[in-house]
């Protein structure tokens, strides 16, 4: 079966839609044949902002917990060494809070209708992705477009 993830700020959705999405996610959690991620109430800038917010909160409560254990002058000083003194939050802390942490960065990003912009979609994750913009509209996209995009992807990678 296919495992389904719903990605985005689901709190913005209507209650019935959000519950249906959670039920679908739970029902397909054991499937392993393929993974389908559906982005709803999603923009990339909101994803980055939310990830920074969650990372800050996580690090704040971690420091508070360490401080309450009486290790404020021990572990925190050890963790915040000279090199990381200004970097309590690392890049991995931010990426761990991203909505799209459930999937790896895409190899090919397809935008139909011939438009060549990303429109605030997967800006963080598409740094090394092939951007493919066929002029065909979404319902008419077919196997030949997929094969062409894969052939273009393979041209930039070494095989055999």
């Amino acid at each position: 079966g296919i495992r389904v993830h719903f990605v985005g700020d689901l709190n913005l959705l209507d209650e019935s839609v959000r519950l249906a999405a959670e039920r679908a996610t739970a029902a397909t959690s054991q499937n392993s044949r393929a993974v389908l991620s559906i982005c709803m109430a999603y923009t990339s800038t909101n994803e980055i902002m939310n990830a920074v917010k969650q990372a800050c909160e996580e690090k704040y409560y971690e420091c508070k917990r360490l401080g309450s254990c009486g290790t404020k002058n021990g572990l925190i000083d050890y963790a915040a060494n000279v090199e990381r003194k200004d970097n309590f939050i690392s890049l991995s802390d931010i990426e761990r809070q991203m909505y799209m942490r459930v999937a790896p960065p895409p190899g090919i990003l397809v935008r139909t209708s011939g438009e060549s912009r990303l429109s605030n979609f997967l800006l963080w994750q598409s740094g090394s992705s092939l951007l493919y913009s066929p002029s065909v509209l979404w319902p008419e996209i077919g196997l030949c477009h997929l094969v062409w995009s894969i052939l273009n992807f393979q041209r930039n990678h070494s095989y055999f």
Partner: protein
Amino acid sequence: TLRTPPAAQRDRPPRRRPTATTGLPPSPPLAAPSPKLDPNKFQIYFPGFATDDRCGWWIRHGLGISWLMGGARLMDVRDVNEKFSLWTAKITQFASILLWKFMHFLVTVWYLMWNLVHMLESFLVFHGWLKEYKSLDVSKLRYLAIVIESEEARQISDVVELLQWLAAIGVKHVCLYDMEGVLKESKEEILAKCNARPWKGAETAKAIVGPTLILEFASVSDGKQGVEKAANLLFAQYQGGDQDKPKFTEALLDEALRLVGCSGPEPDLLLIYGPMRCHLGFPAWRIRYTEMVHMGCLKSKKHGSLIKAIYRFTTVRQNYGT
């Protein structure tokens, strides 16, 4: 102590005594049953040759020896099947690789033909033979970004030539980006050769006037690592204010990026010079609605292609939600 009887005596069947009921000598032992054949193995059985038949023994072994001398030998069906499967898999793999190579050969031929047509079109555009490209309105293009692959970015002369073409077209504000920061290292040389000035960071669109080209230099450290710096700045504020914690919004993160020096205006158009249409990690915060055009490799850049890309941008219509 018991003595072991000699071998000849051990092999002889035991003497049978007459049965008590009939008084007749026991019936001779039944002929040895024919050996059970294993269906999983291909075995040759010669019927009619009993094991105790000396003539049959010689005939059977004689045939076997002649068979060996003929080159044939006893084989298992399972070994034959395994070898057949192995050969089939190898042939299938070879055929698949051959088909893959042939498909990519066709794609390469198609791109060669496309490049020839593209070269001809660029020539016609540059020399003004195509009327639609004559009237180029660059006022819509306020900010242009150029992404160059780091290996090609080392060719500073090509970069300078490209910037001179852009200045001739009328573009005022350009951001140069490469992943490894090669262009940042050659910043002074590029500014001197292009008679350009660096972007000051806090300039508005109204402040960018005059014929001088304004250049901004960016690398991967201004992208994800810039967000990391901004996150640490916000964390310091979050940790310090127990009563009044900051409310996280996109505007707040934008301000934090500006304070750490990793912010800038959003480019209207992004030209990609490299082998693949990929923005190579350009700061994600700034390319929400940026049009991205792949221009091919930097060494094969064409003036006509540049004009065509900018013209096509001026005809794009973007729809924004309410």
